[in-house]
Each structure stands twice: as C-alpha cells, then as structure tokens.
C-alpha cells in the first residue's frame, strides 16, 4: 500500500508535483496516468526516496521507504530510465542487488528464468535491446518478491509480445495480492490493465477512481440516434436543456435525454429509428477531456476542483 499526503515537489519556481494525496491499494493494478511531464516519474522517485519531497509525505507499507530494514521486500521498482551498469552482466547486476538483502543465487536464477533472460544473463547489459532491458529491470524489481511494485512506463518501446507479457505479469501480481502501481501516458494501455486509476495533469490530481467509473463519467451521457427522418426528429427533440447535434445526414447526437426517452418520443411522432445507442466515450477521449480541463483550469478557472470519487 502506498499513501501520499500533500506530496509536493518544486524545482525552483516550477512545481512538478503539486499537493498530491492518494492511496494505492493492494490486490489491484492501479494506473497512474497523465501526459508526459505531468509529474508521474517524479512522484515515483519520491515514493522510492530517490527525490526528497519539497512538502508532504509519502509512505509505503506505513513507513517512508528509507526507514524499512528490507527495502527491496517492500518495493520493487522499474523506473523509466535504465538503472543498470552497461558493462556488467545481467546476472552480476542481479547478484549485486541480491547481496544487499542476503538473497540467494538460486533466487537470482529464478527471476532470470521468470523474465526469460536465461540465454543472455551472462552478457553485458549494455548490449540489451529495449525489451531485454525492461525484462532485466523487472527481474530486479521482483528479486525480493516485494509487496509493492512500482513501474514507470513499463511498456514504452516494447513489441506487442513484450507488452502482452507485461500486462499478464501485472495482473498476475495483483491477483497474488501485491500492490501494483504502474504509470503510463497511454489511456488505452491502462484500460487493459488497470482497475483503478489516478490521473494527474501538471502535477495535480485530476481523478482518483475505479476505471469503470472514469469511463462512465467521461461518456458524457450522449445518445447516438440514426433515423431517415433525422431532421424532423431533431426539430421535435430540441428543448432548453436538450442539445441535438446532427453529425451526419441521418445521425444525431443527443444530450439531455436517455435512449429510452428518445425511443418513446420517436414512436409517438411515428418517426422511424435505425439506431439508438448511448455513446461510449473511449478512455482516450476521457483522458483528453481531463487534460483539456486541466489546461482550462490553469487558464481561466482557478476555483475548479479536481474530480474525486468517494471511494
């Protein structure tokens, strides 16, 4: 479990992380989402004690990461930039990390096998492809079977097979009861792995809610209507609280009415309907929506509040 309270990081007068408060729960994959430069990596580095917060606190398993006697058992981390000496073999890299916690060579061999690096484990890590480097990073993260896993953009630059592997791994770890906190700037990726999502924009908390709720909230309650008499239907539906947009000659996008209400009105007016469906916003759209809000927030509405679920 990760708990951040009013976590803030400033570099000079630039605020990278602005008063973040959130909790990452065990047993599920929590996505940490935001555009590039939103403060995700800085937040993760503060969780690991690599960067010191300017304000606020962050704990893992109830204590600051630094205070743990067996840190690798508490958090395994894969940070965005590589954290491997390029001239050392993967095996020796893992062996050196393992030695700090008295972890055996057997376990080192085990994690190498787990990530599928057994054929190249004795080769220089500097010669590894991006995918192999990510696998090595994950092997080091898993070394002490940590309670919490923190992964910064783990699928960046991976091929489809590697991406699939990471997704399965994250879900498997969460299913085993681990806390899994994974960042991405890609909503679509998060939609496939994360059950809960924390969204940040310019260092501020934008949303902290189940993924399903985020999608529901984002899907703007618009209804898509297809009708050969679209114009007549539009004229009939339009009212003060209802907006109707004609997106094609036979298609309307209606907000302010449910699909059922629209269907009933069409029947009453003897207008035929060829399609009637609530519009599902894609996660990418939800994300864009939030990012746009964030831009507007900075530009116009300083009293705006971040969206939060009552979880």
């Amino acid at each position, binding site marked *: 479990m990760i708990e951040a309270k009013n976590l803030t990081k400033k570099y000079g007068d630039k605020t990278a992380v602005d008063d973040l408060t959130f909790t990452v729960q065990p047993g599920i994959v929590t996505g940490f989402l935001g555009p590039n430069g939103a403060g995700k990596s800085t937040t993760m580095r503060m969780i*690991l004690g690599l960067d010191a917060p300017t304000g606020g606190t962050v704990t893992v398993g109830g204590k600051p990461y630094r205070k743990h006697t067996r840190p690798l058992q508490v958090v395994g981390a894969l940070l965005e930039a590589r954290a491997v000496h390029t001239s050392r073999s993967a095996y020796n890299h893992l062996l050196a990390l393992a030695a*700090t916690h008295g972890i055996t060579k057997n376990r080192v061999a085990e994690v190498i096998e*787990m990530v599928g690096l057994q054929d190249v484990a004795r080769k220089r890590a500097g010669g590894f492809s991006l995918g192999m480097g990510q696998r090595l990073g994950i092997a080091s993260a898993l070394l002490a*079977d940590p309670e919490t896993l923190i992964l910064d953009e783990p699928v960046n630059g991976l091929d489809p097979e590697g991406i699939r592997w990471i997704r399965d791994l994250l879900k498997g770890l969460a299913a*085993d009861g681990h806390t899994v906190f994974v960042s991405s700037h890609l909503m679509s990726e998060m*939609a496939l792995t994360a059950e809960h999502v924390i969204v940040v924009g310019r260092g501020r908390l934008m949303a902290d809610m189940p993924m399903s709720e985020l999608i529901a909230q984002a899907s703007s309650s618009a209804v898509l209507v297809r009708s050969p008499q679209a114009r007549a239907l539009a004229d009939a539906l339009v009212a003060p609280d209802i907006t109707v947009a004609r997106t094609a000659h036979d298609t309307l996008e209606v907000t302010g009415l449910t699909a059922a209400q629209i269907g009933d009105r069409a029947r009453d007016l003897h207008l035929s309907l060829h399609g009637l469906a609530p519009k599902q916003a894609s996660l990418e759209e939800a994300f864009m929506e939030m990012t746009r809000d964030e831009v507007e927030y900075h530009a116009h509405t300083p009293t705006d509040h971040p969206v939060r679920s009552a979880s």
Partner: protein
Amino acid sequence: MSTTFVAESALTSRYSAVVTVEPVTPARVLHSEWIKLRSLRSTALTLAAGVVLMVAMGWIFGWASNAYWSDMRPDEHASFSPIDVSLAGYTLAQLAIGVLGVLLVTGEYATGMIRATFGAVPRRLPVLWAKATLYAGVTFALMLAAAFVAFVGGQQLLGTHGTTLSADGAVGAIVGAAGYLALVGVFSVTVGFIIRSTAGGVAFLFALLLVLPTLGLLLPASWREHLLPYLPSNAGATMFSVRTATDALSATTSLLVLLGWVAAALAGAVVVLQQRDA
C-alpha cells in the same frame, strides 16, 4: 474494443515465491560492492595498470640510477635514497587508482545504476562507507604487494647502490606508500560522490594531485612553504619518503594533513548524499 484478457486463475501465484530476505547490513552492502567491483572488466584492467606502473617505475628508476650512477652529480649522490627511488612509481599508480575510484561512483551515475543501488540501500550512506572501505582495502593490499615487488626488484637492479628490507625505514616506506595510495583511493571515491561526473571528477583529481603541486612551485618561496606541504600528494610523499624536502612537514604531521583531506572529503560526500536527489 476487442481485448484479450487472460483468465486470472491461470495467473494466480505464478510470480510469487518464498524468498528469504535478510535486513540490509553494512556487511551485506560491502558484499554487494565487492560483486560490483569484481564484475567489471575495466576495474581489473585499471588496477592491473596501477600495479604495473608501481612495479615498472621502481625497476626502471633502479636500473637507470645504477646504469648512470657515474653521470649523477655529487649532490644527487648525497640525496640519493634507494628506497625512495624504488617506490617512485606511486606518482603514476596514484593516477590509475584515483581515476578508478572516481569511476566506481560516477560510472553508476552515468549509467543510472545508482538508482538501483539506492533503491536497494535507500539510506545511501552505507553505500559510501562500503565503497570507500572496500576500495581502500583492495588498493592497500594490491599496492602493498606492488610496492614490495618494486622495492625488492628495484634494489636488485640498483646493484651495489641498493639496500635491503632490513634497512632503516624500508618497511615503513613500503607500507606508507601503500597506505598513501589507499587514502588516494578513498579520497577519489568521495570525489566521485561529490562531483558525480567522470570528466569533472577526474579533472578535479588530476588538478589536485598533479597540477597544483607543479603550479605551486611558481609561488614566492614564502607562500610555497606554507601551502605546498599541505597539498595531499606532497603530504603523502612526505609521509612515507625516507628523504624529504627541507621545508616539508614531519611525517606524522603529513599523515594528519592527509587524513584531514580524506575526512573533509568524506564529510562533503555525506552532506551531498543526504541533501541531493539521486
């Protein structure tokens, strides 16, 4: 949107294992640093270079002094110390040791390894103590052996002008040279932590060990005698040399000066490690 979800049951307990994990202790951090040290080829090569320089210079100077003895001036004869001549290789060995000491740390910063290191040892200071202790131990052991070989071979090559291990100050000079080089090792590790870049660290070290002592000779004599003996390389040389310059400090004071440099550098490294983001 069509997605492929893997059945959760197929994944359960595939990644967890029973792993024995012990607390991080200074001894374990030292062990980890030892694995790091021996698993880089550049480390072995640089240390070998240090040993070769130490031995080869001693032998070459020994042979040359003997071969050209009759060409030397009387005052050179008068100040000639066969012990010091055979240990003269320390001037080059200290550069190899200094560069490697800086690299042991800056190599981690340059590659990002430092994040893995501090991820495993988030208190950070144990890493400083382990690297400094380990490197001091390794350089002392190697340089003690190298100084001994340089001395014995050097005395052979000096022929009738040579001396033996039982000569006054011989053992002290050998141990002192190894001790000085080990302190240079510790100092360079701290420079690595403070400067964090290889180029900057090496440049700083070379400036301090090589350039300043030479540049300082241009100062007026009254300044020279108050400044130069306190430079680490001069203090080190005074500490273990049999013959010393007339304006030099005593061997004990020189050792204290040298320890002062190392202590100040360690203190600086402690401060930056606690203050700076990794």
